[in-house]
């Protein structure tokens, strides 16, 4: 009944078939550019990109996981733990490669456990990863005894603060991973399976695909990305800290949802995720440039998430 009333009113709004996130992104950019003169400077734009990379590294695999009708709540905690392990390894061995390997190793291990709990034991992803969130967070506190790990050699820091060919390293890393995920999702068989895993599992079983393995692989990919993100995070802080990325998984999930990936039926859009991450980055940056009080910023972020999904909801219900 109410649905009828809404759909009758909708055509008058005449929303073009552009996703909500793109509209919001452009609107925000225009508003900030008009109000704040520094917003469009190259320095600031590169700022926004650099700041968004760590979140992007989590949001990319989160998109795939959500496309399988899953969720990974452990990512922030795994990132934190991996960052501590990386810091400890680098401090004791002075080797970036070993450090990165240990961080990615931690991520893969947690990813495997997540995937195994979800696919073999059939535990709902929310529950399984809520459990591993606790485990990773606890381990992070135990490993570090609540203290930051410092004394990280200079070369680690350059991963984040250095430049290659005039472009900040994090932007290059983010671009590379984005390209990788794009190819993975749209140009490989793995991508086809992922898209089928959400809502079309029976077809996979009939086709003789061992989808359980695919599911484990998807979660391991998420863990590995948390490991890579841990490198950037550690390099950024020049330290490992036991609560550094707590709660970041929710930011990633919000960015994915903002980007138009739906929680049902495996409809995902990797470019949308990029837009979602950038929208959050632009919003925070612009509000800071305008020196908007922190409490208003908090409310704006919430309102943005709701609003963008509201726009999408209106669009998707068009007849």
């Amino acid at each position, binding site marked *: 009944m109410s649905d009828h009333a809404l759909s009758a009113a909708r055509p008058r709004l005449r929303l073009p078939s552009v996703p909500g996130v793109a509209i919001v992104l452009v609107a925000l950019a225009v508003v900030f550019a008009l109000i704040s003169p520094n917003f469009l400077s190259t320095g600031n734009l590169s700022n926004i990109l650099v700041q968004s990379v760590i979140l992007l590294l989590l949001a990319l695999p989160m998109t795939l996981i959500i496309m399988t009708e899953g969720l990974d709540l452990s990512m922030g905690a795994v990132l934190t733990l991996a960052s501590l392990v990386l810091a400890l390894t680098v401090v004791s061995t002075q080797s970036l490669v070993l450090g990165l390997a240990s961080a990615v190793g931690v991520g893969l291990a947690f990813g495997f456990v997540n995937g195994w*709990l979800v696919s073999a034991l059939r535990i709902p992803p929310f529950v*399984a990863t809520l459990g591993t*969130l606790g485990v990773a967070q606890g381990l992070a506190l135990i490993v570090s005894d609540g203290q930051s790990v410092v004394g990280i050699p200079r070369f680690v820091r350059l991963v984040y603060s250095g430049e290659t060919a005039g472009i900040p390293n994090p932007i290059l890393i983010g671009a590379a991973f984005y390209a990788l995920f794009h190819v993975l999702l749209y140009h490989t068989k793995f991508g086809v399976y992922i898209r089928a895993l959400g809502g079309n599992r029976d077809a996979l079983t009939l086709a003789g695909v061992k989808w359980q393995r695919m599911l484990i692989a998807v979660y391991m990919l998420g863990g590995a990305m948390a490991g890579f993100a841990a490198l950037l995070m550690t390099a950024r802080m020049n330290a490992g800290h036991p609560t550094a990325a707590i709660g970041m998984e929710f930011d990633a999930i919000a960015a994915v*949802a903002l980007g138009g990936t739906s929680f049902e039926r495996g409809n995902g859009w990797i470019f949308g995720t990029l837009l979602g991450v950038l929208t959050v980055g632009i919003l925070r940056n612009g509000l800071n440039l305008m020196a908007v009080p922190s*409490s208003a910023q908090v409310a704006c972020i919430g309102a943005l998430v709701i609003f963008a999904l509201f726009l999408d909801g209106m669009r998707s219900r068009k007849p």
Partner: protein
Amino acid sequence: MSTASDIAAPGARFHLSKDVVQIVYRLLAAGLLCLLLSVLTDSFLSMNNILNVLRQASLLFFLASGLTLVILTGGLDLSIGANIGLSACLAATAIKATGSPALGTLVGLGVGTLVGICNGLMVAKLRIPSFIATYGMLWVLHGVTYYYMAGETIHGFPPGFRQIGSGYFLGIPIPVYLMLGFLAAGTFFAQRTVWGQQIYAIGANPVAARLCGIPVDRRLILVYAFSGAMAGVASLVFLARLNSAEGDVGEAMTLPAIAAVLIGGASLFGGVGTVFGTFVGALILTLVLNGMNLLAVNASWQPLVTGVIVVLAVWLDMIGRRRT
């Protein structure tokens, strides 16, 4: 209406019998925990400590019981912790301004319920996934609360009001009575009323529920409103208990409340779970934390142990359900 309840009722009775078995398992687990703790430490089995555990569990239960109904419909409410913060701060202001605990109570419950209704409208009418709608709401609530409180705290409430958090009746803390009251009311509502049965039906199969003529949107709004109202109740007990209001008072409560519901046997896919199960879940979680404190275990282990228990409980539950 009548068709809906006719269809929902047999299915629900079927669930109930399974649920009873599952709850017996959980009670056994809680009993085992108690036994273990009383062997390990002398201080566990004192009357004081048991009341202590019950009172600590009550705070968790208020939140978790409202959340149970939301999860029964297949949704989730991430805003409850932030809701406590805003409700507590506004109720505190009302009490301070008017000196009337009754008005404060009204404000606390009202704000909590209003937030819940907003959540319900977003989920039911705007069709925003509950996870995202309530996550957005969490941020909005934090923003409003932080702006309103500007980093201050409000403290010092009349002794009469403080009874609901720190008072005793016949030697038992008042929050424990409140918990038992809400437990009885929640169980009755979910198992013995048409509306309760409709909520199960919505969670089990929303499309079928709609086709059966269940007013799905209205029930959804009701469920989120109830979850918000329970956050309001929790905020009042918090206020009375702590004798002060801070913006971040409920922040650390959301994930434990979800954990309690899951340990209690509710399924995130909806349609499965009971308020009583959640009560036992809250009890188990509190017992574990209490035990770790009594045994002087390093606090860093708490998230780890909680995480393992959640996964374990859900896994055992699934095995149990497959067998029966």
